[in-house]
């Protein structure tokens, strides 16, 4: 019998711990597919964050390091500078990358570290049970914004790709989503490109994946995808924000 579909060889057999309908599973698969198709599993080192994807180290077959909250880009910097021949990526959520780790994110980007960052933006702290994230939308209800995010108190969301695309050190910043099959296919292309850039020594590449958290949004998986399209995509428009080698500086 012909095999028509299987998981990438670059994912372990460990069962994912993510909630039903969570898009981490899709994004893990896209990262694993990129590593597999580029043939770099043996030289890749991944950095797991703190948050829902902390146990990413159990899911990828490449070597893995688990970083303190927000520090993944600094850990990746150490890994890459120590062994430039390795391919180093981080996998981080919004709280990790855009709140506690903002300094590490911005400075690894402005140094032009030749690393790849997969940034999962679901507008909430998932692991701790649904608190306001730096990317939580104005008016969005979370455990710590029970009356909706009031920008006069809690300020405004951070648009990471827009912010990073202003930095000279950044090679590539693209925002994608995994809410539809075409968007998943586009995300797969972007993630592979972000790894290829590192192989080609082009420098800092980040792919922001607009994602869902059905559990903490209090929605079914299908409703969550609808909420993402209606609310997140207008605030976080998809597209290439910077592609230095292609001559695209800012959107």
């Amino acid at each position, binding site marked *: 019998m012909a095999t028509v579909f299987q998981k990438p060889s670059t994912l*372990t057999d460990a069962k994912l711990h993510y909630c039903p309908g969570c898009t981490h599973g899709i994004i893990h698969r896209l990262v694993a597919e990129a590593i597999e198709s580029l043939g770099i*599993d*043996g*030289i*890749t*080192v991944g*950095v*797991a964050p703190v948050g829902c994807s*902390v*146990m990413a*180290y*159990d899911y*990828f*077959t*490449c*070597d*893995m*390091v*688990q*970083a*303190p909250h927000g*520090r993944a880009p*600094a*850990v*990746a*910097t*150490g*890994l*890459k*500078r*120590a*062994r430039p*021949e*390795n391919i180093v990526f981080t996998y981080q959520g919004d709280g990790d990358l855009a709140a506690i780790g903002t*300094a*590490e994110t*911005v*400075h690894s980007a402005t140094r032009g570290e030749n690393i790849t960052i997969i940034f999962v933006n679901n507008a909430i702290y998932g692991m701790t049970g649904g608190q306001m994230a730096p990317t939580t939308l104005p008016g969005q209800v979370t455990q710590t914004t029970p009356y909706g995010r009031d920008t006069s108190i809690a300020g405004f969301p951070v648009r990471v790709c827009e912010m990073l695309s202003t930095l000279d050190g950044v090679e590539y910043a693209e925002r994608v989503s995994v809410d539809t099959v075409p968007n998943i296919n586009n995300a797969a292309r972007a993630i592979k490109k972000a790894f290829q850039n590192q192989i080609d020594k082009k420098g800092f590449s980040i792919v922001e994946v607009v994602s869902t958290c059905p559990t903490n949004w209090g929605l079914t998986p299908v409703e969550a995808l609808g909420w993402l399209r209606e609310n997140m995509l207008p605030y976080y428009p998809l597209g290439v924000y910077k592609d230095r080698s292609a001559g695209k500086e800012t959107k």
Partner: protein
Amino acid sequence: MAERILMKGNEALAEAAIRAGCRHFFGYPITPQTEISAYMAKKMPKVGGLYLQAESEVAAINMVLGAASAGVRTMTSSSSPGISLKTEGISYIAGSDLPCVIIDIQRGGPGLGGIQPSQADYWQATKATGHGDFQLLVFAPSTVQEMANTVFDAFELAEKYRMPAMIFADGMLGQMMEPVTFPEREPEISEKPWAADGHKGQRTHNIINSLYLQPQDLERLVRERFERYDVIKKTEVRYDEFMTEDADILLVAYGATARIVKSAVVEARSKGIKAGLLRPITLWPFPSEAIAAAAANTKAILCVEMSMGQMVDDVRLAVGGKQVDFFGRTGGIIPTPAEVLAQIEELARR
């Protein structure tokens, strides 16, 4: 014969680290340790190494975490307020069983404190360099020469026991110039089969991690680590004794303070007071047994520090109920030999 060079303590530390095979240094400016970064920035590119200035002490220690994970010999340095920032990373490094060297050139505290020499971070270095059950190897050199020698030991023992090591000095040792002869010693760099450096299809993936959600797993790992600590306590204790054999008054001091105390001991002896000095070189593991032995027949014990009294806790534990007196200056004030001598004379009269 090896060359004798006049150098600042901070520069000697940096040069020794390069000679010990460190090629990845991650720094952040803070007085009074900045010469280490400056020296590394100048020398590393000439030996094929890396000096990288991080955006913060927090980032620097996490770069060390990454480089150590990759299996290379790596180091960072800072001073008291900066070490406070590094404690998160140090805890993760300890919890991930990674070797590295951290330099602390102490200054006065708390808060921004001051920039003059201090020993007020003894508790931080030996008891609480971050959250969780763990220890660092803590070396307290007292001369520029010893600063240089200790770097080799710190790297080798950190790798042997897979744990972070700290060289714990102060602004006086960092800034003072003394002649130094670098040890003619080839660095012994061990194999690191556990490193996250790419499996090359030759092994299953290595995971560098400090997260264990099952309490049984975490307890087992912490206990295993503490079994290593027990070995270290038996085999790696270092100290120096000066005129303790017949001493009536035992002084205990470390680092730069020990040199001041040594002068006071010599002065006391010239006045017919039998004083002696025990100088811990490792603050963890602490030379408790040596102190107990040296204090067995003394009439008084005096601990001298540039703090309000921190190591004195460990001295009291070591001597089991005997009275231990304390003399300290803090805030960046260096005790004088005359002040220490006055304390010794008072104890002699008691």
